[in-house]
């Protein structure tokens, strides 16, 4: 496998045609890494002096924060960077719920559905978000995206703010005690 590494060091791109067998990435062309990306990656790797492999999760976070989701190219790139096989990275993407293999909405709404939030009205709130954001049918992971790609709405499990239910996250921001009226105000804020 190591002879098949397809990262071009001069352009920092990965050829989509050569990514691991079976991977199809229709979403965009070869990812172009931002100028400081590799420096950030190298810094993160120093946090794990014993084993570079430990940097898999942080690198996946970094990739997803940069590109919005983890593409097959991303998997290939991270694996090459850490001296691993792509499957070692792919199996993390499919295991950890936060990583996505497809783009979500530009504004990502995550509603906690676990018991305390459910008692506090999370199901009604989530339905309200679906309606206001005009989302399409959810996919197999429960992610529903609006046709214009602006919003995605999904249920997530306990977000550890049970005393102020229901709670949601919009992108990386936490909001507690979210009523339907508050939800409408928040949607205006994230226009």
């Amino acid at each position: 496998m190591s002879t098949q590494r397809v990262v071009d060091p001069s352009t920092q791109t990965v050829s989509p045609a050569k990514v691991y067998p079976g991977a199809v990435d229709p979403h965009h062309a070869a990812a172009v890494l931002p100028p400081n990306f590799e420096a950030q990656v190298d810094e993160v790797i120093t946090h794990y002096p014993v084993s570079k492999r430990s940097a898999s999760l942080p690198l996946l976070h970094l990739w997803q924060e940069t590109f919005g989701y983890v593409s097959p190219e991303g998997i290939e790139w991270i694996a090459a960077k850490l001296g691993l096989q792509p499957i070692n990275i792919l199996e993390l993407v499919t295991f950890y719920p936060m990583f996505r293999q497809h783009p979500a909405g530009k504004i990502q709404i995550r509603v906690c559905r676990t018991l305390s939030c459910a008692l506090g009205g999370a199901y009604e709130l989530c339905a309200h978000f679906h309606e206001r954001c005009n989302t399409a049918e959810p996919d197999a992971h429960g992610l529903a995206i609006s046709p214009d790609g602006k919003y995605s709405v999904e249920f997530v499990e306990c977000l550890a703010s049970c005393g102020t239910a229901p709670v949601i996250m919009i992108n990386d921001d936490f909001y507690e005690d979210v009523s339907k009226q508050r939800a409408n105000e928040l949607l205006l804020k994230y226009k």
Partner: protein
Amino acid sequence: MPIAERRLIFKNIDQPGYTIDIDCYLRHDGYKDLKKALTMKGPDIVAEVKTSGLRGRGGAGFSTGMKWGFIDPTKNTKPVYLICNADESEPGTFKDKQIIYKDPHQLLEGMAIACYANNVHLAYIYIRGEFTLGAKILEKAIQEAKAKNFLGKNIAGTGYDLEIYIHRGAGAYICGEETGLIESLEGKRAYPRIKPPYFPAVLGLYMCPTIVNNVETLCNIKHIVAMGGAAYAKIGKPNNTGTRLLCVSGDVEKPGYYEFEVGALTIGELINDVCGGIKGGRKLKALIPGGSSAKVLKAGERFKIKSKKADGTMEEKEIGLMDIPLDFDTLAAAGSMAGSGGVIVMDETRDMVECLANIATFYAHESCGQCTPCREGSLWMKKITTRLSEGKGQPDDVGLLKSVADNIAGRTICAFGEACAWPVQSFVAKFKDEFEGQARTAKPPAAPKLESV
């Protein structure tokens, strides 16, 4: 007269003018206890922690001093690692978040003391992925502490080196299980490791001795060093020492986080005096005392609790649910557990079948899939409870549900098996009428059974 809180860990949290920067922390005597610890010998600090009787605050309630004691400094030749478990993801629990977001240096100080005591030079904080801001706050706090030489090389001129790094999870509940957490930190799927060895102190991160402690546990270390193990052991009750952060959510007037001496108050006092009673003046129906994995307790239930009297003899008392003191031993004797301190309250209007379906959905989503009984069983428990709550149950569903749960607990690598089986077993046993009623009133399935397979 409501029982007063005893704020040790939450002392400064939410106080007017208290901020998360190191200057504010130093003004509140911050890092004084680390300086004190650095004048002591590591094994002496471990001895103080043993004396304190501190029990882990993550869920299992295991003795912290004993956990540390498994690492024998005279025999061990490998590096020792310490990991702070900040994966807080047990439904109903939100205490560690308060510490991370509002008093990050307290955690760092407690952690630095624990690291020094166990001769650790490399430590990680495994924080759940959704705490994006929390990770940034801790990152900044580490930089501040390094700038003041409380972390990094040659701490406070003592020659002791310690690096702490933040490691973010990515939304998997199983990472709270300490061996799953270690696998995750090694860059793998968070599959809990087979036991024995039972403790990462034997084989942990990178196959080296490793200590994994909860955020609240590590904060307690600071206070144990400050007051001494013997003085700490006087807080709370014997074998249930110190304070406890309690998180109350669900149907009470004033949900929130509180800190009390362990066992200082009863469930009734917590609900009625501290949390202002059940919402809307309704009545209590059920309560989960220690995170969603703990067995449910039913309003009006009575328990026979054995306890040790002052003279060492045992006595058995019958007490009602509202009179159960919130400590490790009494809750265990009542058939549940103090767990992570997350109390979820359900009022009389709640449908227990729906509540259990919600919990079962959580566990079905979070099973790591490694062991067959849990992977398959958790999904079946979700399917059965969901169809019961939707009125589509089948006549033998209640028995089936119990049989599935009974066949998970004790047959898995990690305690997740118990964690997903206990709610089902306890809900079904204690609210049997509701479950059987649902199964009876349900219409028979439209298609013959064979076709529905």
